[in-house]
């Protein structure tokens, strides 16, 4: 870990100002990922601006019928919030499928969006990594890539975004409110994270100095027909090999609206609009689900150790769609494999 200075911001303007005043600085919320990365020397910020105590921890109704999730509300407080449980149970399930209670108690909503990939090589300074050191090469291509991307990867990077919460968010499509040196703006969730392309060093589209202040969920929460299915190498405390977030609106057995997003498969939470379009107006049948699932993975590319993910994703999509259509899921349910 490199030496750094530290300050605790009192309000958003103070935080933005403080960060702008320090070269090589970073915001820190719960610190559940950044501090690890600093210990490994992957991140070497010269100055940390602690934003965890900013007055952004509220979860409150929005005039448009939506719900505002404050950026510094913890993942735990968000998952167990009564409004979230009742109106956005998909988000509740996805958050609870991630990390451990201890981590969720510390991690913030803003920080969840900002967490970096778990690529083995990104974490290990002994190996080249374009995300960590642009131009040095990608060790995961041709290396051990069990947890790596099958969709939207580039020749520079095949890393995945590790969040569960963000997969549900991709399906729920909130706007991300940010403040920065140039003022405030909103970013559609879908546009927040980016694909690696030639610049895998950038995980998202935030401009320099911008700080997430809230996630504004739209009114539609898919609370009746939803599923978050996470498949991993152990039943808790492991990142997703493949996860699927589904939200459906149903009229009888006809799907009238659909959301479908995948985790563990791409550099960003992978929402598939064309698959959603294929679902709309269709009967909720195994045949429909199979067709949609095949469509989602039609352009997937394996990298060797993760080839299985293509078939796994296909099957997981079918299962998640079926679960969502059945409408038996409840907030608090977390899939544990056999039971």
């Amino acid at each position, binding site marked *: *870990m*490199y*030496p750094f200075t530290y300050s605790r911001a009192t309000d958003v303007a103070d935080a933005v100002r403080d960060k702008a005043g320090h070269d090589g600085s970073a915001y820190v919320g719960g610190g559940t990922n950044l501090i690890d990365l600093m210990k490994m*020397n992957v991140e070497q910020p010269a100055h940390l601006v602690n934003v965890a105590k900013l007055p952004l921890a509220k979860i409150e109704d929005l005039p448009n019928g939506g719900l505002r999730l404050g950026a510094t509300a913890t993942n735990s407080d968000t998952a167990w919030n009564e409004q979230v449980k009742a109106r956005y149970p998909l988000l509740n399930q996805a958050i609870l499928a991630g990390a451990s209670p201890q981590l969720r108690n510390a991690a913030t909503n803003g920080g969840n969006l900002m967490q970096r990939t*778990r690529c*083995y*090589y990104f*974490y*290990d*300074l*002994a*190996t080249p990594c374009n995300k960590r050191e642009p131009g040095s090469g990608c*060790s995961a291509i*041709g*290396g*051990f890539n*069990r*947890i790596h991307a099958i969709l939207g990867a580039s020749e520079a990077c095949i890393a995945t975004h590790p969040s569960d919460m963000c997969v549900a968010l991709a399906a729920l499509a909130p706007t991300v409110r940010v403040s920065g040196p140039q003022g405030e703006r909103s970013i559609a969730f879908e546009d927040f994270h980016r694909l690696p392309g030639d610049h895998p060093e950038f995980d998202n589209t935030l401009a320099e100095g911008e700080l997430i202040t809230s996630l504004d969920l739209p009114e539609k929460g898919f609370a009746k027909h939803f599923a978050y299915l996470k*498949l991993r*190498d*152990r*039943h*808790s*405390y*492991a*990142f997703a*090999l493949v996860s699927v977030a589904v939200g459906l609106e149903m009229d009888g057995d006809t799907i009238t609206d659909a959301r479908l997003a995948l985790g563990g498969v791409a550099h960003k939470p992978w929402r598939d609009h064309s698959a959603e379009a294929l679902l709309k107006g269709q009967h909720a049948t195994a045949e429909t689900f199979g067709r949609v699932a095949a469509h989602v993975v039609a352009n997937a590319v394996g990298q060797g150790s993760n080839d*299985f993910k293509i*078939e*796994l994703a296909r*099957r*997981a999509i*079918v*299962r998640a769609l079926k679960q969502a259509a059945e409408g038996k899921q409840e907030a608090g349910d977390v899939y*544990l*494999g*056999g*039971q």
Partner: protein
Amino acid sequence: MTQTNHIGKAPNRVDGPLKVAGTAHYSGEFNVPHLAYGYVVSSPIAKGKVVAIHADEVRALPGVLEVFSHENVPYLAWFDKSYKDQIAPGGSPFRPLHSPDITFNQQPVALVVADTFELARYAAALLRIDYEQEDHETNLETKRTEGYAPGGGKTGFQAPPPPRGNPDKALKNATHSIEAEYAHGAQHHNPMELFTTTVEWRGDGKITAYDKTQGVYNVKNYLMGVFGLGKDEVRVVNQFMGGGFGAGLRPQYSVFMAVLATLELKRSVRVTLTRQQMFSIGHRPNTLQLLKMGTNPDGTLASLQHHALHETSQFEDYTENIVNWSGMLYQCENVKLGYQLAKLDIYSPQDMRAPGAASGNVGLEVAMDEMAYAAGLDPLEFRLRNYADRDQNVDKPFSSKKLRECYKQAAAKFGWETRTQKPRSMRANGKLRGMGMGGGVWDATQTKSAAKALISADGKLTVRSATGENGTGTYTIMTQIAAETLGLPLEAVTFELGDTDQPEAPIQGGSWTAASVGTAVKNACDALGEKILKLAQKPADSPLKDAKYDEVEFVNGQLRLRLDHDQAVVLRDVLQASGETQLEADSSALPNMLKQQGYSMHSHNVAFAEVEVDEDLGTIKVTRVVSAVAAGRILNQKTARSQVLGSVVWGLGMALMEETVMDHKFGRYVNHNFAEYHIPVNADIPHIDVIFVHEDDDIVNPLGVKGIGEVGMLGVTAAIANAVFHATGKRVRDLPIMLDKLL
């Protein structure tokens, strides 16, 4: 009624309160004054040379005390034998900072010492080192045809016995036969506590090393050999350990580094490894096994052949007993066992819980399942038909063996009779259900140990032996043995361990501590008891006047005649009347070779496992495990049960998730952290039933104990693998069985 019969009961851990109160001190918690901190720098390459270490750039930082490397290490011992510890395998032990040559990835190449840990870590990150890289080979697959039989092995290694009968002919003529290869990757022990050494500089060349180790004497002797220290110049202490599992059997480079820095700087130094560096200190080796089996028409084994090949380093022939168990667990007249090593550019493997047996057991017990299916037999019935009443490897009877009773009790508890033989024939909760079993065998060993017992005039007993406590319950069982031997309540007894100022005990491994140290503790207490008896007999009117020691017993704070309980004296009265403030006795214990030579001495177990598999997604959930263990007499039902519970979890981890993945391009383990090296978490662990089948065995040792640290792990991995086959019809032969292998 006797209140001082403690053995076989289930008292709580006597060291529990210290642990929950945070007053049990681990090696990184001895905050001696004026402590400096060392941080190890590890090689990023697997093979080559250090060409330059730009240490001066780092030495210039205020607060950095020194950078140690091969460039400035003082003259140390020259011969290999000085570096050999009690269980060093054949070859040349790794010498940290000895030369610029790199022989494995993450090899320690420098130690940065500074006034604070944070500064040492930062300086280590800044330290520029130039390497010259050479081609390496870390892939066992490339060495399939280059295996060799090791010459000498380490202590405890036994080359496989020569073939018996005519295994090839018997296989050819068998009614049914199978042949299959099994594999598992490297696994690392990963105890929660990082390897840490705090070395206290006591002035005048004297040091105390608080070192995470499973053997304080092993470390002391190593340090004396390597650094030329005298007996009185080095003391090694380790009273608590946050898990060992074999990782602490050999002195690790952390203790070398900390002692080196302390002696050079004449200042106390602590060195703590990182989690990543915990993947550079030895592991269960990547192993390939070939099994061939054939049966006779009656379902008995006609032929059994088991060959294993595993990796070792370029500099040591690490050995373990993988295949020998296959020659003794089942009755078979035609057996061929083979064992080979292959050298790779890796660090030496190291004993890891049930070393060898855990690996070989998976091959043997999955093959037994395959053979049972080929022969059309229930897997339990197949094992019963091949039950071994003698150890055919050495042609001796077992000192005791209640494996049949284990099968019976565990099968009943598990409900094995509800199982239908056909794969994919059982379903539950919308999943495929599978039931599998596996059994195992482990050594019952006793090794030389010593202990000292002291009793004060007020009847407080202290017993000391330099053994270890890595969470197994050593403090508790030794307290029970001592208290029962001298008829005292547990509260009157203090057992002290883990200090080279105490009588010598062997490294804590091999499941031999209860038998070895326990016997020494009993002997020391008996020696003390004889002294007490003599004192009791001094008064002319002593009711014990002419009694011999074996005619008396210590019970409930009294010393009395075994055959006439009214002829008794109160222990405390005897001690106080003697005028002595303290009595003490030393004793040691050796195995009774004469008594043991006609027998094969082993513990046995069986595990039954139930799984549910989601057929579409390949996810596996272990829903139940029943484990039955026959390991002589159980000293403490509670700590013993905890050990078996832990063993089952280990077996589950080996079956379903544990694997250290080597990227051969770099010759480097890539998942070297707790996020990506998966060990089971609570959500993975099912309900576990533990059954102990008591064995009376006065041949293994006077206490009749066999040890249970390792045997409980056997069978579990195979039982789960076999249950997965039963559920799905898919036979996965390379561990761990992860969901992609079932898609």
